[in-house]
């Protein structure tokens, strides 16, 4: 221990330490915990959660608590870089910002002239704060190809809700009697929600959790439905069977506000609780008990997760079957049910009206060629208004169809997000020009022609809304390190260099925010007076049952058990209009021969508390919490049968490829299932997937149910 020094990190008026306010954006969105930064001589010496922040109230998760290591990590990119070796060789020379921006603008304008603006794609990984400005830049440049990591995260769940409800319906946890949490573990992903979960349980809220794993969330459930990965649809349909046949459904609501009930009811008859048990592994009695608990509650809400259910080749249909339960029970847009609230900013319903939509869509879609993925996933552009489907990127780079993609400008892009990640990495080689902007030198940056250093959230400012009607426009707490710049500054400077005639880009960042916030009456000047954020002065809460006035925002104007949008693709693409259950593309049911050779179900991407994707892998404060990574979670019974001990090396193989990782023996994994975290450079599980292992409706990868085998590997083979 270093000698104890009095008030080493606490301001005492003499030691020069001051506390400044900001937010953490290591994960995104909804979270963005308030931070108190202890600053001495322009450097952060200590971090803790802001007590006055409405979301985290003084607390932090292990990622946010490691902010200081994140900001000062040695892997930070220090200057703009130009590639001098071959792509991927990591040979770069520093260049000036002027040269970098000039080169990028010049190259993009040349490609625009030769191949059209659509030949340039703009991609956003994490975080999300700069997305509105990047989307505007894309369309202002003339390209439809604004694509993001939401192509395998946010959009499919939103898409499913749009197909069933017409709009999103968020769980009203504070007022519900029964929460049906369908695959999620907020204690590891969204601590504020975890805390709310416990508080509401103390109030008397019942909790049903659907999850193939044992987690701190399932441990707190009144009922845990531990299904086999990818069988969510069968479970939801079996619950519907109980609710319909025991007449527990809301007959008035179904008669007056829904479409396709008779056909849905007839289809559901196949899914008796016993058949549900056969398909999902969940005991029939537990299915009945959960269905009754959900349907008998005065109010019940479904708590969805961004990607757990939709990361299956049958993800959209499975989740439609889940949300149909809210239709059956009339729990849509009522207090304590799944409420509709319009988005204010970056997918968050912040209880204020804004002009975000006008800002991000300066050119209508009709004036541009179709977005990436529109031809292969035609449901996508019908339901997703925001962007292209990025999973199609490697295909379009390779084929040049329906038009060539020649350049890619990535912000925080990580090629390991894609199935067959190595395939995408090779596709990047075929681009004329690739720029990546990041905080750290990543393997994706190594593929770029030009790399630009972005600063962290503490070195710049950003606007965020929160669902409880809280808003913040942060101010930098330290100067940008090295020559790094804010992503937004890069976007605005590039707009100028590209010669775009765009009034708001010309007027600047803060004027743009004033433009976006104008309908709310909140200004940047006002927000700057509240560095820790503030509650919005006039929160707008839409009345319950918005559908009574204008109907549902679906083609039928009703809540759709049978989708009128999907109906159009029934003949052409074999997409069912009812929420039909089909087993995952590779599964013991769908491919029994393959399952003989690959008898385990591979489920990837379940969260560990100290990591969000790759963002804190490099921090010793986080990595020391989980030793011997990369490791796969396997059940002790399976391990014993195969002679595998804790921390032994194992090979996970699929027909596509194999990786070697350590074994972590835990009850969290059910027998027969292998759980592997994604995106480790040493063992990237996404190379085990074919690039076309996708849901045909959303284009989402089936990361959470494929087939694999595991075998013990001798230490000598590895070292």
């Amino acid at each position, binding site marked *: 221990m270093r000698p104890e020094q009095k008030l080493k990190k606490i301001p005492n008026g003499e030691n020069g330490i001051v506390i400044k306010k900001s937010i953490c954006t290591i994960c995104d969105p909804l979270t963005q915990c308030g931070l108190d930064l202890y600053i001495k001589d322009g450097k952060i010496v200590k971090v*803790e959660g802001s007590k006055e922040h409405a979301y985290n109230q003084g607390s932090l*998760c292990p990622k946010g608590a490691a902010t200081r290591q994140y900001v000062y990590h040695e892997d930070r990119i220090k200057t703009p870089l130009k590639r001098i070796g071959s792509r991927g060789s990591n040979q770069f020379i520093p260049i000036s910002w002027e040269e970098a921006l000039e080169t990028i603008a010049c190259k993009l304008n040349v490609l625009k002239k030769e191949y059209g603006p659509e030949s340039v794609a703009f991609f956003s990984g994490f975080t999300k704060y700069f997305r509105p400005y990047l989307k505007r830049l894309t369309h202002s440049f003339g390209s439809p190809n604004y694509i993001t990591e939401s192509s395998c995260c946010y959009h499919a769940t939103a898409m499913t809700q749009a197909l069933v409800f017409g709009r999103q319906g968020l769980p009203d946890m504070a007022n519900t009697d029964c929460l049906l949490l369908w695959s999620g573990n907020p204690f590891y992903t969204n601590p504020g929600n975890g805390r709310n979960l416990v508080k509401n349980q103390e109030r008397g809220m019942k909790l049903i959790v659907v999850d193939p794993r044992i987690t701190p969330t399932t441990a707190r459930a009144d009922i845990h439905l531990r299904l086999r990965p990818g069988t969510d649809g069968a479970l939801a349909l079996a619950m519907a069977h109980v609710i319909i046949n025991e007449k527990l459904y809301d007959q008035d609501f179904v008669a007056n506000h829904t479409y396709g009930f008779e056909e849905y009811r007839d289809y559901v008859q196949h899914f008796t609780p016993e058949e549900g048990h056969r398909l999902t592994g969940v005991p029939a009695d537990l299915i009945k008990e959960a269905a009754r608990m959900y349907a008998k509650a005065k109010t019940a809400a479904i708590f969805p997760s961004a990607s757990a259910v939709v990361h299956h080749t049958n993800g959209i249909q499975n989740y439609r079957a889940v949300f149909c339960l809210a239709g059956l029970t009339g729990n849509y847009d009522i207090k304590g049910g799944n409420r509709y609230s319009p988005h204010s900013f970056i997918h968050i319903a912040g209880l204020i009206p804004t002009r975000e939509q006008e800002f991000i869509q300066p050119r209508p879609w009709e004036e541009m060629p179709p977005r990436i993925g529109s031809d292969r996933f035609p449901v996508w552009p019908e339901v997703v208004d925001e962007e292209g489907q990025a999973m199609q990127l490697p295909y379009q780079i390779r084929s040049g169809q329906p038009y060539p993609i020649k350049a890619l400008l990535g912000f925080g892009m990580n090629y390991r997000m894609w199935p067959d990640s190595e395939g995408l990495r090779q596709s990047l080689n075929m681009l004329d020009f690739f720029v990546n902007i990041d905080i750290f030198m990543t393997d994706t940056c190594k593929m770029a022609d030009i790399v630009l250093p972005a600063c962290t959230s503490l070195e710049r400012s950003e606007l965020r809304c929160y669902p409880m009607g809280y808003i913040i426009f942060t101010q930098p707490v330290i100067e940008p390190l090295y020559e790094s710049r804010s992503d937004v500054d890069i976007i605005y400077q590039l707009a100028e260099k590209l010669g775009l005639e765009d009034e708001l880009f010309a007027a600047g960042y803060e004027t743009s925010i004033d433009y976006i916030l104008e309908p709310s009456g909140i200004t940047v000047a006002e927000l700057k007076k509240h560095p820790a954020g503030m509650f919005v002065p006039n929160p707008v809460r839409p009345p319950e049952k918005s559908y009574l006035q204008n109907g549902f925002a679906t083609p039928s104007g009703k809540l759709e058990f049978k989708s009128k949008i999907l109906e159009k693709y029934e003949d052409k693409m074999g997409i069912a209009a009812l929420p039909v259950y089909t087993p995952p593309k590779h599964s013991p049911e769908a491919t029994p021969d393959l399952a003989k050779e690959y008898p385990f179900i591979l489920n990837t991407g379940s969260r560990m508390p100290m990591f969000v994707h790759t963002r804190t892998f490099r921090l010793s404060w986080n990595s*020391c919490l989980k030793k011997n990574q990369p490791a796969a979670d396997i059940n002790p019974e399976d391990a014993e049968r195969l002679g595998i001990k804790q921390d032994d090396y194992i090979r996970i193989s699929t027909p596509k490829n194999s990786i070697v990782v350590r074994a972590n023996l835990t009850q969290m994994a059910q027998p027969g299932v292998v759980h592997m975290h994604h995106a480790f450079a040493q063992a990237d599980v996404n190379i085990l997937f074919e690039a076309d292992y996708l849901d045909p409706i959303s284009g989402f990868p089936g990361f959470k149910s494929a087939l694999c085998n595991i075998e013990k590997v001798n230490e000598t083979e590895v070292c």
Partner: protein
Amino acid sequence: MKKAVFLDPERCVGCGACVVACMDENDIYPEKGEPPLRRVYQIEDRRISENGIIYISIACNHCEDSPCLIACPTGAISREPGSGRIVTDTSLCIGCHSCALACPFGIPRYNAEEKMYKCTLCGDRISVGLEPACVRVCFQEALSLESANDFQGKKEKALMESLIKATSQKRIGFRE
């Protein structure tokens, strides 16, 4: 009565935020061979929990009758008057590991110079009325700084409440 950091294992989810906050507060860097002062253990045993998994966050307990203090041959470990914290004077530590042998909880850690270090109960922070870093960071409010009797009282109250709830006929929000 002196205050200590208590863990409510019913609330702990094993996230490790307390471990990180402790390293941030005390400038501990694992890459320099400095193990964290606080640790979180995931213990799986179906005999103790229906779901098979419990989490324990632990650091120095600042014991009333401290075996480490008695075992230390150089007087490097002492009790701070008033607060009752068990503190280490690194300059007196000879790296003999006697404290490690004596501690029933396995708490003492050694840095690259073999000097012992451990939780100080965030002496700086508690001296000005702040909670220790581990307590402050915990979103589950699983860690708390209080006296043993206060902690026991809370446990007692929670148990009584759950008994009342379990035996009450009144159920909230459900149609029978």
